[in-house]
């Protein structure tokens, strides 16, 4: 009797232990700020990725080595703090069975942490951090010949190009540049200046105004811009301070177009700016309008899964979703949970991936230190101009909307 019981217990224990042993799941880490000023982006990215994971798991998982494996998620909140990011990166890099990492919203966090993944040979898709430096840091002559870091976001160079083009196409000539003093804000300012030069110096920058995270009184900066005769404000910062700029403009009776990075679509910009935010424009990769069947299904699934009526950051959610699909496609093609093999597959995806933003055909190529776009998925054509209207982001240009509607009809 005792023996049977012991045997039974043993088998129970074994059955219990097996799932934890070795590669019965594909372990993927999701990181990002799930609290603080960047939280709308972090949370939306994570939830978008988890939506994709739930769909993949519900369909049985990804076939690897003859059996279908489920995806297991490890979540880490980096609180948008560089030092937290570095710590988390070290922790994840020390794990032996991790297949890859998706996430990071803040350029500073990327700069602090990604070197550990690169050293360890862990594949990471940066989503949705857009700061140019996140990728250009690797694109130097002495940089690595093999890179494990990919990006899935309309990086700042693409966004800045769009912002400058929009300002020019509106016939503006004199602008003021506003930015915060974080890595993101400063590198965004550089991208804007760079793009203004590239697009033929059609815009004159009257002044560059800087502010800190937490600054809520923008009167001095705004009045300076006004006194100098600025026709528009181009801005690179995050939601709460951008809202302070909009509210400050309303207070001073300034009616200038505000155009800037995609953070202007964050809920903490839209909510804090309220009616003062109407008309603000920013580049978007995804707009929460059910314009085609794929977008409609995604938006409805997100709303249902997380009990919201508006995605905190629709761009981040859609990018988190599509990035996860790309990663899953790479795992499938590699037929392995080994991060190096997944990297090789990502660099050469054979089958197109039908995402919610676009149909991704060979989004990445073999890494070339001389060409950072080999590991950048987004081109100008996957990016559209969005505009804030009564608490939501809508298409700024009808032409973009029509183009995307066609995609669903095909």
């Amino acid at each position, binding site marked *: 009797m005792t023996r049977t019981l012991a045997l039974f217990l043993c088998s129970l224990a074994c059955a219990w232990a097996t799932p934890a042993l070795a590669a019965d799941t594909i372990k993927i880490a999701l990181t990002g700020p799930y609290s603080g000023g960047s939280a709308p982006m972090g949370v939306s990215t994570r939830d978008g990725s988890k939506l994709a994971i739930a769909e993949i798991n519900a369909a049985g998982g990804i076939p690897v080595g003859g059996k279908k494996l489920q995806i297991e998620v490890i979540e880490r909140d980096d609180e948008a703090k560089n030092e937290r990011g570095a710590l988390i990166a070290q922790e994840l890099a020390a794990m032996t069975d991790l297949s890859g990492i998706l996430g990071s919203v803040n350029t500073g966090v990327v700069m602090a942490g990604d070197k550990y993944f690169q050293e360890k040979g862990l594949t990471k898709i940066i989503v949705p951090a857009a700061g140019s430096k996140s990728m250009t840091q690797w694109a130097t002559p002495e940089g690595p010949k093999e890179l494990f870091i990919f990006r899935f976001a309309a990086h700042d160079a693409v966004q800045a190009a769009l912002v400058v083009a929009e300002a020019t196409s509106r016939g503006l000539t004199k602008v003021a540049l506003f930015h915060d003093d974080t890595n993101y804000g400063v590198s965004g300012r550089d991208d804007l200046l760079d793009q203004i030069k590239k697009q033929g110096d059609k815009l004159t920058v009257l002044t560059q105004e*800087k*502010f800190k995270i937490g600054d*809520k009184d923008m009167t*001095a900066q705004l*009045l*300076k811009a006004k006194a100098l005769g600025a026709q528009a404000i181009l801005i690179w910062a995050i939601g*709460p301070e951008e809202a302070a700029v909009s509210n400050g403009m*309303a207070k*001073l009776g300034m009616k200038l177009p505000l155009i800037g990075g995609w953070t202007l679509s964050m809920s903490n910009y839209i909510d804090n700016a*309220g009616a003062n935010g109407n008309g603000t424009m920013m580049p978007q990769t995804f707009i929460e309008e059910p314009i085609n069947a794929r977008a409609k299904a995604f938006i409805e699934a997100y709303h249902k899964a997380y009990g919201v009526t508006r995605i905190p950051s629709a761009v981040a959610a859609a990018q988190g979703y599509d990035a996860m699909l790309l990663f899953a496609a790479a795992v499938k093609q590699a037929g392995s949970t080994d991060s190096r093999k997944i990297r090789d597959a990502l660099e050469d995806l054979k089958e197109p991936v039908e995402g919610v933003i676009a149909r991704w055909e060979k989004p990445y190529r073999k890494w070339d230190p001389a060409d950072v776009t080999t590991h950048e998925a987004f081109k100008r054509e996957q990016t559209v101009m969005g505009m804030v209207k009564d608490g939501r982001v809508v298409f700024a240009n009808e032409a973009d909307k029509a183009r995307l509607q066609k995609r669903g009809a095909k």
Partner: protein
Amino acid sequence: MPLQVVLQIAVSGAFMGLVYALVAYGFQLTYATSKSINFGQGELVMVSAFVSLTLIGTGLPYWLVVPLGLLFGALLGLAVERAAVRLALEQKSEGWILLTIITGLFLFSFAENVWGRDDRPFPTPIPGDPIHLLGVDVTGLELSVLVGVLAVMGLIELFKRRTLLGKAFEAVSADRDAGELMGISATRTVMLSYALSGAVAALAGILVSPITTVGPTMASAMILKAFSVAVVAGLESGFGVVLVGLVLGALEGLASLYIGSGWREAPGLVLLILALAVRPTGLFGKAVIRKV
């Protein structure tokens, strides 16, 4: 730069300066009776703002939330006094420095866990639309800061001069031991000063939140500036903090206009260093002769 722009920047800065002055006044109140300062005053501002926001969320009208918020601030002030200050004072130690900092850190974590780390808008019936006054745009919100700050400081100063309790307050401020000999309970007076200080902090939170939004870090920058104001003005003069607050706020705006927006914080620090070097008792402070 046109004069009007300079004037507008100075005026807008000065309104923010009034908020620094109000927080600095909170320092003065407790310093007067107990020679102690609540280094967690910023967290009192922030937690009171969050509590008021929560009260507004329950559907209470703004005009009812303001007194309730002040009451909450006063209670919080009493709690700080009991938890962090009283024992240290009884032992004549400087333990209150660390203890008030720790209380502040505790309140900060508390707020992060209860209300989260996001900045939130603070709804108010006071209109945010600009009013044109003497060539300068001023919002109703900014005027409410002016009215609120002056009214509360005026009331407290009146209370100190005209009521028996207020006179006890002044007596303990002047000489704690002599006050005790006259039958005034110093402990109670210190409690009163912390309650008043807490209420003042709460008012600062309620007045500034509609302009700056509410978040756990909302007061961290403010508190340093308030401290500069208190030190520059001296820890005795209520009139002094208002004046220094106004000037500091205006200087911040002007610095960011003329030197560059990265230099905004500089005037406060320069003033602080100058004050400490030239007049350690503050511009409006009285040099105390210590008799041995």
